[in-house]
């Protein structure tokens, strides 16, 4: 296995369930050790894509290679190196957390003590000998994460991994993922909450109704979308107002200060900043780059517009 080989290669992959086209012509490649996110609404095709990567569903069109194998051709050996966290992870409630994780560890050829270590890692050490039926949703999600991490996977597929996790557990979750990515594990996770991905994933692939509408780093997507930068400037009561561009909104505070919300194109940002500092005598300034949700809405809107045109 070459170090630079791609962990995941999709080429025009399509999946149709009866008359429903769940995935239409999706192509992308993930190199080893990258942490990437699939983003889209419910029904955008994220889960279907992951099932095809695992060989649980067969593509009706296109090609995909997972760790160098074709997943549809029953790849027991490759599956040993893949960890998967399903969207809604369920376990038999009668068994304890330790029993389940040890059973799954043996299936992957991993020694039981390593499995116990993973339970500790996700904070389930104290609950390991309790029946899973007594677990909370967050605990079950953590157990799901622990089983995905079994056996030093080279590829991790995590379907909506952060739902049901407390904020502090979320922090720990991202730390674990970063650690695995550093060790060379390729990680693909799906999400519909773009905001929490900022600063954590290297790459974002946006899906809409089975189609891929964008693929790149968050900064690249921002540039592609050319969304305006928003600013909030606080002015003293006696500051000049003549520089304020059209379309800006003003709100006068009780103490006479004035808060101005304005927006400008990304390439005019610096010019605007210079003008504000030189002329207005502003006392405070907040720079608000476009949020991921705005970015997301932009790409989806773009798609809807393209389809409306003949």
């Amino acid at each position, binding site marked *: 296995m070459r170090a630079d080989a791609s962990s995941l290669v999709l080429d025009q992959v399509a999946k149709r369930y009866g008359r429903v086209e769940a995935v239409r012509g999706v192509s992308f490649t993930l190199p080893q050790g990258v942490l990437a996110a699939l983003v889209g609404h419910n029904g955008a095709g994220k889960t279907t894509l992951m099932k095809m990567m*695992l060989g*649980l569903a067969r593509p009706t069109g296109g090609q995909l290679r997972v760790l160098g194998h074709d997943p549809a051709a029953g790849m027991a050996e490759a599956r040993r190196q893949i960890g998967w966290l399903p969207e809604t992870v*369920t*376990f*038999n409630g009668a068994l304890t957390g330790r029993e389940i994780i040890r059973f799954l560890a043996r299936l992957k050829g991993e020694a039981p003590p390593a499995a116990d270590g993973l339970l500790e890692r996700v904070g389930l050490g104290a609950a390991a000998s309790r029946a899973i039926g007594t677990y909370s949703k967050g605990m079950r999600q953590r157990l799901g994460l622990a089983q995905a991490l079994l056996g030093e996977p080279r590829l991790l597929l995590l379907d909506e991994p952060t739902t049901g996790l407390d904020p502090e557990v979320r922090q720990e979750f991202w730390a674990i993922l970063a650690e695995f990515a550093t060790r060379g594990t390729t990680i693909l996770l799906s999400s519909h909450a773009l905001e929490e991905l900022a600063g954590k994933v290297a790459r974002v692939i946006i899906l809409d109704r089975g189609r891929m509408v964008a693929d790149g780093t968050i900064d690249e997507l921002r540039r592609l979308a050319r969304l305006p930068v928003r600013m909030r400037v606080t002015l003293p009561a006696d500051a000049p107002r003549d520089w304020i561009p059209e379309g800006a909104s003003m709100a006068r505070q009780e103490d006479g200060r004035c808060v101005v919300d304005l927006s400008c194109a990304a390439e005019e940002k610096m010019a605007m900043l210079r003008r504000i500092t030189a002329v207005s005598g502003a006392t405070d300034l907040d720079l608000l780059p476009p949020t991921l949700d705005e970015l997301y809405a932009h790409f989806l809107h773009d798609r809807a517009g393209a389809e409306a045109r003949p």
Partner: protein
Amino acid sequence: MKGLLLVAGKEIREGMRNRWVVAATLLLAALALTLAFLGAAPAGRVGAGALEVVVVSLSSLSIFLLPLIALLISHDAIVGEMERGTMLLLLSYPLSRWQVVLGKFLGHVAILGAATLIGYGAAAVALAMAGEAIDPESWRAFAGMIGSTVLLGAAFVALGTFVSAMVQARGTAAGIAVGLWLLSVLIWDMALLGLLVADQGQTIGSTTLDALLLLNPADAYRLFNLAGLPNVGQLSGMGGIAGGTGLTAPTLLAALAAWVLTPLLAAVAVFARREL
């Protein structure tokens, strides 16, 4: 192979956790002990061995009970896990689908086998300890009864697993399981009897009758235990059929084995092609 045994082991562990093993064992032991001691009193006077009486009464009972327990355990095996969502996770592991089906089958048969062996064995041990004289022939009949009972259970576990691999919902599986049970332990024999009476021996010869009996695992089991063994045959009132039939004990056991293998292979084939 390892995956197969791991799945079977997990199935047994789950069976013990949700009390299936305990319930089935206690039920079979209680019935066997009751029959052994209630049945022994009158039988002593007509000269039949105590254990033969137990073989006859227990195998009549097993025909109803074992298929029911087997179908109850197995009808949920695959469709239940698919509905709960645990099957997808299992199949994302390095495990083939046939290993899942066979592993679950083995686990269920182990549960059923242990319950039969312990439950019925308890009755034999109790009889021996009560000082009844039991000759080797009777022990052989008893051992044959236990072995064929496990085989009967395995046949219905295989049928239940097949149903479980076919259907889309647990409710459907349960309905079909009940139907299968009624058909094999009640309706089949009644229909056969009605057919024979209506036919008046005109067209249905003994070969056709044999074939019709082999088409039902419960009848193959009944013939094997009630008619196939010499001392037992006279006692069960099945001697008449046994005299007229060309079915030997090996044929009956082979029929039972076929009833285990055919649905099992069908279950593997159906599940392998299923879209998840």
